[in-house]
């Protein structure tokens, strides 16, 4: 264990700002739900009425979790923020581990560290301790914030234990993923798929008979019934899961060579026919396929809820707020929200893909590429074309998944083509966020990470905009809000053209910046 202390101190120093943002963001997510709910329903009577409208709404249950004690502020907080809080914290864990383990190994800095008086397991132990510490601090602060707001202590502690336990299980899964592959990108892909699977399993389980929810650590946290029974025993499940996955990661670590994953790299062809355009496709095709599979499966899961979505909703005011139903079928409202969520998920691809331009600079590829006859403009366009096309493919794949799921449940085969086509109307939203990344890359290359703040902002608006009663001048900044909510509303050319034009402007500004500044 030599060197763990030194490594941990250096991690804390390098990550202090990053940790602050993640932890503060997570705590704020919970606290703002409490404040927001109280602001929306000023009296208990209003809250009780809203709860009646929400309690049997499968669409909302699929998005958030099992509806329990929704007539209390605590129940609302656990319901609205529970699953998302876990996902946010799990992603923090994944990025922390990737940054200190895989990325270090990939860059060779890990070798330098290991050549010092540091034991073989020290880096992994230091990174794991960092994650545990960050999660526990987050949990404690969530309790402090919620108790400070006035919620019951027991329920707040149960909620926080579920959050931390679940995030740690997903973090341990990330640790295993990092032993399997050689690149941090693939490890993020695998972990992202595990987190998405945990979310979708509990969504389908919560709407159905609940069995599938027990296969998801997010489901375990929600089975602890914070503020509505405060059950402790599901927390026991976290222990063997974290211990088992961490042991597996350690076993794998000892069986592989430093610098190479368990899956060895295979030899490639001795000659190639790649050019500027085929290169970017070649580098991103795996990512396009992976994200498209992810959106397809998400669509499939939501689509499989079929007609049951519309059975119980009735005309609850809040259900209309959340789903934005405008005189059309509730199922259409649910599908419109699902498609917007799919487009939001596709932003994970569109933004990371747009930021590969920056990756080309940091990685030193741009130096080699632009020392040839390749122009800056062509280099940029080759990247951006793959970003645009890949984003469209991922969103449409999600729409097709939604259609296939719906068709399998209801037998209405025409839904596949219809929802696939409807998905295209949500594509410009995901493009617009890539446009933001491009303009940052062109003019503020050191601040490209702000593009993710755009994605986070749109997430907040999409999921909580109606519940938090955000003013429309804020919500309208989100391209997801600006676009027509197809199929709940009919397609309208105006907003579509406006978002598209804004995207093109952002992109063009990015290109101008990129051709004018120093590269590398």
């Amino acid at each position, binding site marked *: 264990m030599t060197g763990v202390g030194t490594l941990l101190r250096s991690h804390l120093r390098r990550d202090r700002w990053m940790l602050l943002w993640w932890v503060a963001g997570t705590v704020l997510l919970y606290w703002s739900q409490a404040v927001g709910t109280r602001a929306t329903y000023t009296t208990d009577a209003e809250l009780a009425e809203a709860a009646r409208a929400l309690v049997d709404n499968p669409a909302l249950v699929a998005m958030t979790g099992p509806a329990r004690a929704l007539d209390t502020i605590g129940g609302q907080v656990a319901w609205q923020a529970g699953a998302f809080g876990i996902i946010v914290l799990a992603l923090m864990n994944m990025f922390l581990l990737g940054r200190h383990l895989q990325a270090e190994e990939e860059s060779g800095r890990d070798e330098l560290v290991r050549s010092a008086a540091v034991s073989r397991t020290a880096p992994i132990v230091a990174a794991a301790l960092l994650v545990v510490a960050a999660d526990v601090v987050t949990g404690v602060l969530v309790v402090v914030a919620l108790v400070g707001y006035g919620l019951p202590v027991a329920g707040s502690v149960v909620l926080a234990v579920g959050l931390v336990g679940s995030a740690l299980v997903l973090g341990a899964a990330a640790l295993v993923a990092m032993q399997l592959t050689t690149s941090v990108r693939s490890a993020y892909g695998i972990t992202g798929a595990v987190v998405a699977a945990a979310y979708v399993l509990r969504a389908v389980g919560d709407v159905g008979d609940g069995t599938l929810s027990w296969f998801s650590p997010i489901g375990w946290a929600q089975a602890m019934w914070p503020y509505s029974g405060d059950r402790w025993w599901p927390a026991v499940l976290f222990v063997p899961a974290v211990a088992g996955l961490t042991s597996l990661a350690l076993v794998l670590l000892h069986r592989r060579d430093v610098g190479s994953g368990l899956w060895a790299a295979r030899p490639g062809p001795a000659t190639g026919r790649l050019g500027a355009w085929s290169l970017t496709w070649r580098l991103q095709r795996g990512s396009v396929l992976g994200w498209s599979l992810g959106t397809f499966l998400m669509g499939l899961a939501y689509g499989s809820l079929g007609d049951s979505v519309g059975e119980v909703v009735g005309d609850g005011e809040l259900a209309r707020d959340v789903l934005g139903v405008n005189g059309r079928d509730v199922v259409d409202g649910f599908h419109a929200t699902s498609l917007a969520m799919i487009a939001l998920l596709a932003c994970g691809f569109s933004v990371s893909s747009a930021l590969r331009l920056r990756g080309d600079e940091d990685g030193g590829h741009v130096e080699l590429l632009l020392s040839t*006859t390749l122009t800056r403009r062509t280099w940029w366009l080759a990247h951006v074309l793959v970003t645009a096309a890949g984003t469209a493919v991922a969103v449409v794949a999600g729409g097709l998944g939604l259609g296939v799921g719906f068709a399998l449940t209801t037998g209405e085969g025409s839904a596949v083509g219809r929802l696939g086509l409807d998905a295209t109307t949500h594509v410009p939203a995901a493009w617009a966020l890539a446009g933001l990344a491009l303009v940052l890359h062109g003019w503020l290359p050191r601040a490209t990470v702000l593009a993710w703040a755009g994605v986070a902002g749109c997430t907040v608006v999409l999921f909580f905009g109606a519940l938090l009663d955000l003013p429309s001048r804020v919500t309208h900044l989100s391209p997801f809000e600006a676009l027509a909510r197809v199929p709940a509303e009919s397609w309208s050319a105006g907003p579509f053209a406006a978002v598209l034009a804004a995207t093109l402007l952002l992109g063009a500004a990015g290109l101008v910046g990129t051709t004018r500044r120093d590269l590398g």
Partner: protein
Amino acid sequence: MTPVVDVASLHKSFGRVRALDGLDLQVGPGEVHGFLGPNGAGKSTTIRVLLGLLRHDAGTVRLFGEDPWRHAAALHRRLAYVPGDVSLWPTLSGGETIDLLGRLRGGLDPARRDALVERFELDPTKKGRTYSKGNRQKVALVAALAADVDLLVLDEPTSGLDPLMEAVFTDCVDELKEAGRSVLLSSHILAEVERLCGRVTIIRAGRTAESGTLAELRHLTRTAVSAETERAPEGLEGATGVHDLVVEGQRVRFQVDTDHLGSVLELLGRAGIRTLTSQPPTLEELFLRHYGDHVEDAS
């Protein structure tokens, strides 16, 4: 004839850091030019300006007589570049990378490429992430050497290569020289520069400290002489240009300014020379002299 590279009083700052501060560099057609300087002197920054990746603040930069910032892509048809720290695409094989760069440079001769792969003993089927530093260097070198271009820009190209591969590289540069190509060779390995380059430019803190043929530069420095004479030589002490004189009976050792070598040898001749060795200054000494100044400046 227009020089291939013509840089005059080049300035470039990154924020407050002044990377280049009045740098001059000229490379003529068919010339192998050594580009020397301590770490952080601005060699790579100069090369990036020449490639059109960085925009310079002041001074003039001409590549084949044109502005590399404005005409980067067109000018790059005539050059090939090997970066000092080659980073390959992790998932592309070496062969794919060589062919990609070749195509982007306007096509390469497959026979020449295969011959170079063989000479450098490179396994082109390995993936980028599995190559060692030396092998990554070889991938970039093969791609550059296989290109039919007028100028090669090589930034410390042999760092990471083993001595056998260094010899192969030296042969390749000799062949380029015979074929009349120009080479800008930034290097730390002075023996290599001495062996390959007709002219050198030594830079320090973003400024050109010395530039010229090796002969010209040597002229400015001292030659080490040691001799045995029949009689104790007279008049050496106090003779202009003689330094560090050590007389042990009939044996003498001293340094002499290369300008005054002739007149000092005359003095020795009068004492009757039995044996004489003289060592011209190595590039290392030239370099150390400038680097030494640098240390003094800093302290």
